[in-house]
């Protein structure tokens, strides 16, 4: 039935017809509902049924555990901080109602811009934002103002992606750009110890101890105030919406690795880089933070989330197989360095990934150059 409606509508959205200027929009909705009837014209006659929509769907599915846990944790942190009695589901629903508006704003703003950009170019609408639109809410603090999310999303999509030509052409991870935008423009809304627990910002008269993230505690030297390793791993800690539970992120990682959507090389080398630097710091430790066992860092802050969902973004990561090892390893190293040695930024993951995004093309350049050199070396060997 829907097919018949679309078939009837289609002519008025063809080029030159009345709504021809909305062709991309129509195409996007149509191809969302139906896999198009396009057949192969040249080259291979049959094609794998995997497409970018499917790939993006897999990533969204992989994000679901983090989102689900994040919703609950918001309720839990709120109840914990304010000493409220709440059931599991009431905590979850409390959190969900706080997260939902952020998700809606992120998708409406981002997709609105994507559709407009595709329309202006006369292209098909790309699927990339389906994932970005979900990543942005998950790396926001729960109390972030909605207008800020909208503004950051617009910045990320326009400056981060569309001016480069859209999905596949961008240099920086758009979701991280959105976070970085808020981080540098409105730092008080995304750092400190008042933004991570819902309700802490509004003057409620309740005297609370602290809503600081473990990373902030560690950076401030309060190693003794760190939550237990179990709390860190399961995620019963304040933090960005989707990043707190290492377990939920790991479930997502399993999905991504199993389906082969994300590169295991990047994930593995991120962790290796972090641990290697961590052990080196332990060895050279001159303060309590440096002697913190490095596995704490795996579970604190956004490292796990970043390593699994951000660093592995195929467009902004290194694209050569050898390059991926180096790219991931350096993200791990930089994260540790920023976390431990830069007192201004307790969380190093975001900046480490963005920095390595900038260097990924350079890494690839050298990998390709060495590939070409190897090819040239073959010549005397065969004479």
């Amino acid at each position, binding site marked *: 039935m*829907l*097919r018949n409606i679309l078939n009837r509508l289609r002519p008025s959205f063809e080029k030159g017809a009345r709504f021809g200027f909305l062709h991309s929009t129509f195409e996007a909705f149509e*191809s969302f*509902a*139906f*896999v*198009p*009837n*396009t*057949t*192969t*014209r*040249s*080259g*291979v*006659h*049959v*094609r*794998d*049924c*995997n*497409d*970018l*929509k*499917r*790939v993006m*769907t*897999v990533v969204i599915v992989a994000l679901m555990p983090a989102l689900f846990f994040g919703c609950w944790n918001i309720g839990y942190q709120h109840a914990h901080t304010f000493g409220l009695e709440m059931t599991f589901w009431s905590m979850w629903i409390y959190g969900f109602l706080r997260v939902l508006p952020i998700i809606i704003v992120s998708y409406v703003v981002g997709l609105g811009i994507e559709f407009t950009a595709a329309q202006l170019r006369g292209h*098909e609408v*790309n*699927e*990339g934002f389906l994932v970005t639109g979900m990543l942005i809410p998950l790396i926001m603090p729960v109390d972030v103002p909605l207008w800020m999310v909208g503004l950051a999303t617009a910045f990320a999509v326009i400056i981060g992606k569309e001016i480069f*030509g*859209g*999905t*596949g*052409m961008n240099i920086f991870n758009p979701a991280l750009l959105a976070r970085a935008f808020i981080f540098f423009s409105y730092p008080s809304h995304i750092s400190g110890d008042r933004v991570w627990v819902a309700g802490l910002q509004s003057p409620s008269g309740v005297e609370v101890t602290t809503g600081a993230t473990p990373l902030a505690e560690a950076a401030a030297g309060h190693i003794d105030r760190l939550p237990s390793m179990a709390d860190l791993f399961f995620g019963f800690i304040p933090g960005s919406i989707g990043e707190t539970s290492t377990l939920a992120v790991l479930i997502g990682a399993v999905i991504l690795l*199993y*389906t*082969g*959507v994300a*590169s295991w090389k990047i994930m593995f080398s991120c962790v290796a880089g972090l641990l290697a630097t961590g052990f080196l710091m332990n060895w050279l430790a001159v303060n309590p933070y440096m002697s913190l066992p490095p596995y704490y860092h795996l579970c604190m802050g956004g490292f796990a989330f970043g390593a699994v969902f951000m660093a592995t973004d*195929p*467009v902004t*990561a290194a*694209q*050569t*197989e050898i390059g*991926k090892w180096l790219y991931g390893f350096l993200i791990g190293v930089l994260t540790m360095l920023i976390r431990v040695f830069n007192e201004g930024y307790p969380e190093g993951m975001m900046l480490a990934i963005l920095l390595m995004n900038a260097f990924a093309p350079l890494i690839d350049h050298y990998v*390709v150059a060495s*590939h*070409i050199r*190897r*090819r*040239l070396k*073959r*010549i005397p060997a*065969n004479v």
Partner: protein
Amino acid sequence: MSNVIRIRKGLTLSLKGKAEKVLSKLPAAMAYALKPGDFPHLTPHLLVGEGDEVLAGTPLFNDKRLPEIRYVSPVSGVVSAIVRGEKRRLLAVVVKPSATQEYVQHNVADVSALSREQVISLLLAGGAWPFIRQRPYGTVANPSDAPKAIFISGFDSAPLAPDTDFTLMGEAATFQKGIEVLRKLSDKLYLGLSDEIAATSIFHKIKDVEKIVFKGPHPAGNTGVQIHHISPINKGEKVWTIDPQHVIAIGRLALRGVYDVSKVIALAGSEVKHPRYFRIIAGVAVSTVSDYVNTSGRCRYISGSVLTGANVGADGYLGFYDNAITVVPEGDKYEFLGWANPLRQHRYSASRSYLSWMFPYKEYTLDTNINGGERAFVLTGVYEKVLPMDILPVYLLKAILAGDIDRMEQLGIYEVVEEDLALCEFVCPSKIPVQDILRKGIDLMINNG
């Protein structure tokens, strides 16, 4: 058979409609055609007109650049049509066959006594030269070149491809003769064999050629992949390749002095009622096999394999280098929320985004739907999994898109032709037309010397 080269990357597609090893008779074909489009970079110069009587072996056109290379009629009969396309480009010369086959008779000489030049002129005069293709670029070889080696792939690993051991049955003597002729052209002669070679294969008896065994998934049977692993092509080098069926045709020319391009081909694909083998003559009209094809839905007739063949249509003709006709359903249908369906069990994906990897032995019916829309390169590392060559496919393609000739050379464009990257195109989630892009790059390389 001591050398075994293991190919680890690649993908063997399991499709429905594999040809059963039965050789059946076909009704007499209505027409045969020779198509200049089968020879990349050929500028044809027509030598016959409509209504001319020809014999098997009579030149129909030659190459304007290398006029000594003649492209000859596969059968005797009357030129019934000269098919032209846009800008009067020559598409096909169609010959209506006579009741009995008559051949242009060439001198039969003792090959061992011939010089290299005499062998070349025999092949040129006999119309057999276009059998020999060169790498780089997959064009018909230039007779004045001295190739580093000649490569023959003794098996075809493409989906639904004919079983070479079966199609060459009983041709050991002619094949050996063909090898003897080819040895005059180059003293390095390689024959790539599958590790699953049949005990009855004629290749066990063949001598005077270096046999190399390949083990692994498609594209292990591609000559390009075999060359890459045996003796990769570097800048400035040339190698020649030839199909086993054409080695036999050369053998016949040397033994009997005639241009006889009859061969056994497979009729395969999910839309074929009884997929099997037939003996035909090269260039046969596809309509000859129409009785064997399901007529219930719309079908695509492919000359060659589903990965690299040409869509010739039900009224088309078998391509010069093709040994199979594959018929698959057209996929011009919409599929409601197909990409979101968690199972989609009737479709195949090499990725694990779907569940088809759990059923490695299931035979799939794939239609021609593109299954998505064309996008920019997004995922990385996908092509590398199906390309068993030391080549960076995405960088090569990007260099071609940028028209950067130096970079194309550095990244090894002279090692690949379209078929080598066909699997990359198949698995591409961005639906990028890889083979088209590569052909454009190759054209650019040829046109710039």
